[in-house]
């Protein structure tokens, strides 16, 4: 077999490869585990390329040659270069910031419409802290969620319950005498926090796509003859989660003005 050293071709995302599609469950679990460890995309692609190359030569499925994908991902990561990207935790922090700004901002819109000052008491502040903590913990619980999908429903229900409890707690406590008046007009808070939400959305978009060309899970193996549309899609697909909160914020503002 003749071989050409150092042949460089246009990088292709691993999901385009027939081997990965044929062993989707194993490869997805492997990639997810390394992603949650903030391993850069090209490094993940190289590790998956080793698996594909070896399995192609031996004729074994990855589960037979490499065992459990999560265990193997941990083992190969422990032996690899400690290079990391910021990834999951940064996005979780930006998302938590957006949600907090949205909760306070939409409250401020209602007060702006009704002409009352924005007030918070300790219970409400505690509820906001619980919501923020729940959102910041999401990356920690992603791994068990994906490892045991049945847990996903329970966890989402728990998150929903936490958010609901926070809302109910905040509403129940809103009329208490211990409320602290925020010494800033609600209009300023509402508009200011909308700007904050937009800024965080922009940062999140940059995090999701800014380095995407460098952080895609690309394979070092010879590309398959398929159009690589994933990289073109990634910019647009990143817009959806990024625009959700600003859109909700704006919609709540309009609803408050129209029906308030």
């Amino acid at each position, binding site marked *: *077999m003749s*071989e050409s050293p150092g042949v460089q*071709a246009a990088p292709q995302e691993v999901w385009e490869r027939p081997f990965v599609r044929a062993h989707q469950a194993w490869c997805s679990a492997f990639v997810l585990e390394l992603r949650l460890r903030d391993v850069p995309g090209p490094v993940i692609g190289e590790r998956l390329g080793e698996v594909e*190359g*070896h399995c192609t030569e031996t004729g074994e499925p990855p589960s037979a040659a*490499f065992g459990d994908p999560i265990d*193997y991902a941990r083992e*190969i990561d422990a032996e690899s270069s400690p290079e990391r990207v910021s990834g999951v935790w940064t996005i979780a922090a930006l998302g938590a910031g957006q949600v907090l700004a949205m909760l306070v901002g939409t409250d401020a819109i209602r007060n702006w419409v009704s002409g009352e000052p924005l007030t918070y008491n300790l219970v409400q502040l505690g509820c906001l802290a619980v919501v923020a903590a729940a959102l910041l913990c999401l990356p920690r619980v992603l791994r068990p969620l994906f490892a045991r999908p049945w847990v996903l429903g329970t966890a989402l229900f728990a998150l929903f319950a936490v958010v609901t409890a926070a809302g109910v707690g905040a509403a129940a406590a809103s009329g208490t005498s211990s409320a602290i008046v925020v010494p800033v007009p609600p209009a300023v808070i509402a508009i200011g926090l909308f700007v904050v939400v937009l800024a965080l959305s922009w940062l999140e978009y940059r995090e999701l796509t800014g380095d995407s060309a460098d952080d895609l899970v690309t394979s070092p*193996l010879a590309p398959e003859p398929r159009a690589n549309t994933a990289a073109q899609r990634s910019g647009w697909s990143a817009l959806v989660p990024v625009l959700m909160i600003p859109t909700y914020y704006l919609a709540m503002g309009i609803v408050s003005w129209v029906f308030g």
Partner: protein
Amino acid sequence: MPTGPQPSEWLRGVLELCVLRVMADGPTYGYAIAGRLADAGFGDIKGGTLYPLLARLEKNELVVVDWRTGDTGPGRKYFTLTDAGRAELEHGITRWEAFSARVGVHLAAGGDAFVHSTHSSRSSA
């Protein structure tokens, strides 16, 4: 001489040295390394055992790697021993020879004592 698969703990201790020795013959790739080790009687080394070791060699700069495309198959990751890798191999061989000689002496002495003790107890019975 009785032979058979060695305990996996023994192999784990010397696998890195054996892999470095395979690489000393020239650039090679994972599947070929596994084949050479199997031919040498070490049994079937699974990818899940071999590639973390290769990753460690790469991290410690004992090897350099490059991907090569071929006529068949998706491509191969070749490992080439660096000067540091060769030095590590030579150092490892020296240490292994000293260790295995020590173990050999110990087992031979222990074996003599065992044979002597068994012979004595049979004579007295």
